[in-house]
């Protein structure tokens, strides 16, 4: 038996059913030690622990202003000063009047308040029991003062007046020793043995003679959390790994872009609705950026004038935007490859990164999202190659039954989209969009190769597949440390 357990049992021998505070005094043990020892002893049946719903109280901010005087006391004092009678309005203090009347300290007739006999006593300093009890609660909080506990209704009244708050808790009300406890005590001696290991005890070999004091392995420990990576990094790395396995080279490009690479190079007409403020973040400083590749600029201009039969404006193309898709990176790489000598085709590239949508933010929408884009550049590449590549990727994620449908994107033709049947929602969900980059675009980028391209909305994927058990994106990027530390592992 542990020293504390023996002390507790000795303390309990004297008197049956003692409270913890009594035991604190009689045994000299701390509260924590008593609770720990009682917990152990009750498991072996040496003590019986009785619990009851106990209340802890605390005085509210408002209550603190009531310590010296309650409003009803103020009212009767004021009345006393004005000769025992006064117009009700002159007293102000609605709450005080209400309680003074309730206490029978005043009467009110035709708007005139008059002091009663009891009221006079109250005004002349007779103790106001409610306040006395309130003060005793204040002194002894959070423990309920014995006086308050014995006065039924008073605590409720004070709580109702919002002067105190009461918390119900399950606490130990008394501890009693059992016959087993008494027996154990009579035969018990302090269990010797090595407690915590120290350099000295290890060297001295004292443990060879004394052995070790066994610990209660059931005693609950403190909750600790591992530091962790953000789930999005884990998910992003997981996706990256799959493309790397498939022989793709990882690339990246600017996050703040020119409209030129974000829209124009991808054949998006300059008067297209998506280029308006409502979907795209334009910058006010700097408003525009330089388009450095003048050769491509001229080719893109030609492509637009020929294709859309509209004016094409370099100023509009120079506007600075936060990229709306990572397809801008694909466009830049199409151009880069066109100027790279001895490239080893087919070349397979992917990029993953933030993209931006000027949206109203709510519990489902964020302005910063993430996209994964890929391209394959080479000769004799076909739509069936594209379908094969994407089906392979998703089959690595355990999604084998992908439906492919026609779709429209301004930069690809033919275009397609991939859908997956989500059993949980009983509906098809969109996984990716893609296609063969338009000839007009590859020509403007200066290449005669075929380019297969696709984009995957990463966030939507993360939510839809229930990978994190969270159905709102803002929850993932809110970075509440409690969630970050205790979230579940990715289910991929």
């Amino acid at each position, binding site marked *: 038996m542990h020293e504390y357990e023996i002390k507790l049992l000795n303390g309990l021998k004297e008197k049956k059913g003692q409270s913890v505070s009594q035991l604190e005094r009689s045994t000299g043990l701390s509260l924590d030690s008593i609770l720990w020892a009682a917990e152990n002893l009750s498991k072996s049946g040496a003590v019986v622990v009785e619990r009851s719903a106990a209340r802890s109280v605390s005085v509210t901010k408002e209550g603190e202003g009531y310590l010296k005087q309650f409003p009803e006391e103020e009212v009767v004092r004021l009345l006393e000063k004005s000769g025992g009678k006064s117009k009700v309005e002159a007293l102000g203090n609605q709450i005080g009047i209400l309680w003074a009347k309730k206490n029978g300290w005043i009467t009110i007739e035709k708007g005139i308040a008059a002091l009663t006999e009891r009221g006079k006593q109250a005004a002349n300093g007779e103790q106001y029991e409610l306040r006395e009890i309130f003060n005793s609660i204040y002194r002894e909080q959070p423990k309920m003062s014995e006086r308050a506990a014995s006065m039924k209704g008073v605590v409720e009244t004070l709580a109702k007046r919002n002067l105190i708050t009461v918390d119900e808790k399950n606490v130990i009300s008394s501890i009693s020793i059992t016959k087993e406890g008494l027996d154990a005590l009579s035969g018990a001696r302090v269990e010797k043995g090595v407690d915590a290991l120290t350099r000295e005890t290890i060297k001295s070999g004292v443990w060879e003679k004394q052995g070790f004091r066994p610990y209660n392995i059931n005693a609950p420990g403190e909750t600790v959390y591992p530091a962790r*990576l953000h789930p999005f990094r884990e998910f992003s790395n997981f996706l990256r790994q799959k493309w790397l396995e498939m022989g793709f080279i990882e690339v990246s490009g600017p996050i703040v872009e020119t409209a030129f690479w974000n829209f124009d190079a991808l054949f998006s007409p300059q*008067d297209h*609705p998506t280029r308006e403020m409502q979907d795209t973040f334009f*910058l006010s400083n700097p408003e525009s950026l330089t388009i450095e590749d003048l050769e491509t600029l001229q080719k893109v201009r030609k492509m637009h004038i020929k294709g859309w039969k509209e004016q094409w404006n370099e100023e509009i193309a120079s506007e600075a935007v936060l990229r709306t898709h990572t397809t801008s*990176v694909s466009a830049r790489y199409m151009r880069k490859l066109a100027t790279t000598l001895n490239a080893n085709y087919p070349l397979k590239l992917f990029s993953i990164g933030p993209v931006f949508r000027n949206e109203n933010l709510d519990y489902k929408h964020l302005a910063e999202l993430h996209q994964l884009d890929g391209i394959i550049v080479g000769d004799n590449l076909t739509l069936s190659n594209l379908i094969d590549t994407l089906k392979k990727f998703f089959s690595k994620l355990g999604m084998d039954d992908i439906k492919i449908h*026609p779709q429209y994107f301004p930069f690809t033709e033919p275009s397609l989209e991939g859908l997956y049947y989500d059993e949980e929602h009983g509906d098809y969900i969109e996984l990716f969009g893609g296609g063969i980059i338009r000839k007009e675009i590859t020509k403007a980028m200066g290449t005669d190769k075929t380019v297969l391209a696709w984009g995957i909305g990463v966030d939507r994927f993360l939510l839809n597949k229930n990978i994190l058990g969270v159905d709102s994106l803002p929850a993932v990027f809110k*970075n509440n440390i409690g969630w970050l530390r205790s979230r579940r592992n990715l289910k991929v």
Partner: protein
Amino acid sequence: MPVVAFNVKDFEDRGYPVKRLQELLPSLGMEAEFSEGGEIKIETMPNRPDLLDFIGIVRALDHFTGKRQPKENFYKIDKEPVLTIDVDPSVKKIRPYIAGIVAENVDFSGNLLKYAINFTNKFTETYGRKRRKLALGIHNLDMIKGNITYAAAEDGMMTPLDAKADMSFSEILKKSEKGIEYGGMYSSQKKPKLPFIRDGERVLAVIPIIQCEQTRAKEDTKNIFIDITGTSEVAVENAANMIAAALIYGGATVYPVTVNYGKSAVQTPEFREKQMKMSLRRAELTLGVALGRHNIVGLANKMGHTAAKYGNSILFFIPPYRLDVISERDLIEDVAIAFGYDNITPLPVTGVADGLAQDTAEQENRLATNMVGLGYTEAINSILTNETANFENMQRKGKEGEYVQIADAKTEQITMVRTDIVPCLMQNLSISTNEKMPQRLFEIGRVFSLNGNTIKESSKLAFVAEHSKANFAEIRSAVEAALKSSDVEGYRIEQSSDPSFIEGRCAKVVSGGTQIGIFGEIHPKVLLAFGLEEPVVAAELTIIKEIKYEV
């Protein structure tokens, strides 16, 4: 993408029950959403305005299922013009082009009028760029007296739809819902002139805002006049042809209208024969399907084209409603849709390629792992922020011209791109005050600064620790551990000063003569701004001073 609503029953009446629609529409690139009460919402591809219309969708389904084969010379206008539109020079600088269509024996019964109006709204909103580029109105032909004039004036009178009496143009602009919505496009003119059309008796429409009540088309209207106006001649012509083709498919008789521009006159609509060749070899090389074994003419028919074999090519006759077909690729795409995307056998890309991860990504991963080892949990915040969060709460002042500002975000919370990461982490701590201490967070991310017109993107590592014993010594140890684990050598730590930190408990990291980081104990003013009640220590280190992209 545009969405239009219909009643499922109308499709059922034409032989397309829900089950068929669920299977057919996606195969044609349309998405359907069914709701209770028999409504179906169809999302169409933006390059196919012909599918915004009920007749257009039915026609696509009829051809795709083979219920109705496309016929040669089906779309033709062989009647004489029955109406003339005189174009006044006053419209030349505002909205120069107009086309007219007259149709007899139109069916607007049941929901068909509603569908026609919905089409008008959607079409002019999307393809017509909010009616700026293109607008149209449908009138009851029987109420039109004499020929039509298209002109512009500062004011005039008309009884707009749903009104009981005449209103002046300016009143219509100011008071009517449509006037407020669309009138803005003229406000830039000094003395705004509004385009309108009128017949012998009254103004028929103020363009592109609203038409008059008297010529309103109703469910029992049989004969109609449609006006199409806009800023692009091609767009106006195309729209007229597309709409005329839908009317013809719906069983109406279409008459042309003469548009008299003064010096020249044209007839609208005018179907020009549109032929295009598709090379079989190029189609096979694009799709990766041995099309030669299939009936390609049949596939063309499924998409509404008539076609014939022509040597090693297929000659397509493209119907006038297909505004999107401009090159061979469009035909190849049509053949693929007819063939069925799900019927295409996936074929692997040949050739060996080695995967390669990007250095910066791997570097960030290693650093992140080290930070976790130091007991810091990772946060990922958006780079979008505002001046209060990025500067003011940190007791710092932002200098305009040194950071990237965002124009007109839909939310007030976004006005700029972040220059530092610690403010984001402080925000994360402030929503985590109920969580167990100690709290340690880090983030590796991008920040942006501005120098003249040049934007600099940098990669930074930031970390914060909050608990009752957090102090300078702790953050200094963590900073040195982070620097060493990212192979930064030969750095010095020097006394520094920053309004975010307590004076005398703030240090900077200097390497190669430049500052690469700052750390210390966060000032209580900052803590209070974030509603934090425990001490916080923080560090922000530059990992890559300027990200240079290879492209």
